[in-house]
């Protein structure tokens, strides 16, 4: 009698198991990248680490995730990319970079998360299946880091093009006032005006702030800026660590692993069943601070040792 009962239980389990396994099928995520660059890889690693433990839809199993990467330079046109995405039928698309987001925006039935994508067009931010991590570096955050590390700085000079950085300057002025800085700003309209603008700022400033501005941060603008800084022995605050080797003293930039984590959390929510239109884009407040000690030594600037990274 016992043997018959066991046989019946095994038979029932045999019938049920396929149903259970179907609920725990792996989530397919396609990662579309602009290019093979290190920041993307760093962010993707963090993203991958965050989504590796996505709970199943019933909250009882760990849902495996399969990531497949697509590099835009490898694709021969939009049709090729579309065929590839349709073939894979992903549960989610992670777009890294503006071009990647523009390339996948037409897949409106698939949730899309953008990451490391600056200056998102408003049309895309309104699209229902798109959410992501905003790439906005807060002026206040940068100034706070300056205050911590360079307490001797009082007057900060900044060049900007109002077409790109009007909001940023407004935020900067507010933050500067709050933190006790005097912000000397000068408008320019082209990169040719950088040199003259710097001369207008004069050598009385304590810090030259390089704004994330497409007019100021051109190669010629950067060169003029660092030449001016070198000639007048003024330290430079910048927004990306790549300028440290050009002569910047302090770089307050995005924390890319944190942005990858934030994107991973968004992906978890989407794969757990939350509708995309209910998930707002997020801003990663965490920043990364780097100091060029050689420049500090050359300019004889003392960095507050308590906050040395």
């Amino acid at each position: 009698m016992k043997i018959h009962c066991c046989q019946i239980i095994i038979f029932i389990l045999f019938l049920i198991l396929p149903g259970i396994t179907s609920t725990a099928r792996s989530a397919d995520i396609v990662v579309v990248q602009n290019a093979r660059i290190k920041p993307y890889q760093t962010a993707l690693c963090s993203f991958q680490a965050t989504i590796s433990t996505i709970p199943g839809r019933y909250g009882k199993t760990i849902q495996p995730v399969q990531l497949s990467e697509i590099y835009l330079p490898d694709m021969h046109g939009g049709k090729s990319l579309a065929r590839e995405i349709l073939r894979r039928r992903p549960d989610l698309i992670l777009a890294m970079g503006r071009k990647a987001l523009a390339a996948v925006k037409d897949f409106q039935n698939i949730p899309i998360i953008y990451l490391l994508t600056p200056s998102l067009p408003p049309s895309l931010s309104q699209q229902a299946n798109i959410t992501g991590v905003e790439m906005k570096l807060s002026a206040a955050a940068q100034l706070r880091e300056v205050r911590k590390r360079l307490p001797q700085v009082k007057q900060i000079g900044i060049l900007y093009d109002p077409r790109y950085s009007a909001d940023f300057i407004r935020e900067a002025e507010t933050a500067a006032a709050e933190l006790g800085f005097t912000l000397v700003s000068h408008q320019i309209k082209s990169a040719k005006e950088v040199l003259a603008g710097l001369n207008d700022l004069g050598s009385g400033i304590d810090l030259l702030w390089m704004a994330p501005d497409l007019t100021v941060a051109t190669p010629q603008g950067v060169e003029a800026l660092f030449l001016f800084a070198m000639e007048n022995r003024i330290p430079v605050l910048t927004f990306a660590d790549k300028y440290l080797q050009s002569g910047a003293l302090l770089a307050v930039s995005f924390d890319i692993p944190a942005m990858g984590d934030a994107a991973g959390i968004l992906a978890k929510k989407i794969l757990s069943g939350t509708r995309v239109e209910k998930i707002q884009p997020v801003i990663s407040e965490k920043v990364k601070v780097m100091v060029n000690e050689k420049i500090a030594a050359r300019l004889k600037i003392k960095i507050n040792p308590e906050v040395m990274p």
Partner: protein
Amino acid sequence: MNPLRIIRQWPASFSGRIFISLFLTMLILALLFNMLFIDLQKQLLTEQTISEGKGQAELLAYTVRLGVFAENKEQLRLPVEAILAQQDVLRVAIFNKEGKMLFALEQQENDSTEPLPAPDICLIPPQRNIDSTQVKIHENGFCFRAPVTTKNTSMSPEELFFEPEDVAWSEEIIGSVQIVISKDRLTRGIKTILTRNFILAAIFLALAAMTTFIIVRQATRPMEELLIRVKKKAGITEQSQDFDLLNKTFASLIEELHNSFRTITGLKLNLEKKVAERTAQLSQRHMELVETNQKLTKTLTELKKAQSHLVQSEKMASLGQLVAGVAHEINNTTNFITGALPSLKRLMSGLETILSRYDDLAVKHGETVKENTGKGDHDYKKMLTDVDILLANISKGARRTGNIVRELRQFSRLDEERKKRMDIHDGLESTLTFIYPEYRNRIEIIKNYDETLAPVTCMPGKINQVFMNLLTNSMQAIPGKGTLTIRTRQDYGRVHIIIKDSGSGIAPENLDRIFDPFFTTKEPGVGTGLGLSISYTIIKEHNGEILVRSEEGNGTEFEIILPVNG
């Protein structure tokens, strides 16, 4: 001798001429190489000046790119002044992309006596899109124009933050720089090179002249001494041209050499002729000696043969006399026996008749002869039969003795025969017929007769006897079946009869003895040992030869050689 005269005459001397030739050659070569070297140096100096000017122009273009981009004169001043501070830089000018002059400076203190080139002439017209440094060589200077480039300013927002992968910034030409460099430095350099080269060439030529003079003097000293000896020998006292004297001396030496060679050639030819003659004579002598040697060898051989024949003949003659005497005595004795045998046979026949009659009578009287004789165990008939057998044996022995005697008489030439012409083939055929039972069904006779064989003058009976002896001997030498080849041929008036058997051959040790009388290898009673001896005697009697060739196991070949007119 007056030293002045020596100095005046030295250029005409042998060593003087060599020295002048060498010195002139060196001078010309030095001048040529110097000119070539100067030309090369000039080219190198020009290239170096151009290269330096290009470098300065490109360096200036790189330095002023920010000032040109911003069209900021203050930014341009410092680099332009720095370039202008360089030696021989006469003018520096900076242009924007459209060709508008942004900044220009000229050398204020110009030491050059030449007027400065006018800016319009010197400056290369600014063109758009030049992508490399250009050079224009002016009468008074070099003008260089280098493009001022900068990276393209269009950027994507990402590029603000990240360094793009495989970044390939496109270069944009935003203006140009022009530098005018004076030719003074080049001219000074060329002058320096010329001066140095000519000084070096002069020093070199002076040293070379001294060295050449010493070497020529040393090298031509034996020649000078030779010339002195030649002059002494020729009795020349005045100072003549060395080369003329050498030419004459050389010509006369050549003539003498030619004469000497001619004499040597003549002597050589004569000598060769004499050697050839002597060689021919020697060869002839040698041939004669060889011929004489051959003749002597042949004569010696013939002499040996003749000696051998003589000894044999003497031996045979002595033996013949002995045999003739013995044969005569035996014949007489045998005649008694053969003469008595018929009478004895008749007597024995009569005795048998008498005894038969006695026997008949005894039968009539009832007794037998046996009883009468008292010798019962002797039968007279049997006794008579034995007597008949004994008589037959005596008769046979007598006949055989007679035969021996006859052969002995033949051997000792007791039987003479007249010579007549005989067909040798007929003789051979008749002999073969006679001895047919001897070889029938056993030996194959192969005949190889020369049909042109001439009849031979001989004693046919004796020659046939020779054939009989040789053929019988050959057949007896073949133990079972075999072949016997008879061949005839004729040459030089002689007939050759060759009889060859396939028998057992003759042992080498017996070969010299087979013609000896009574020598035989047959069983006792089978042969007398006289056949070959008689044959030898008969052939010799006919002035012929009998030869034997044999190899044990491979048969024997007899060759009879008879003169056609024997």
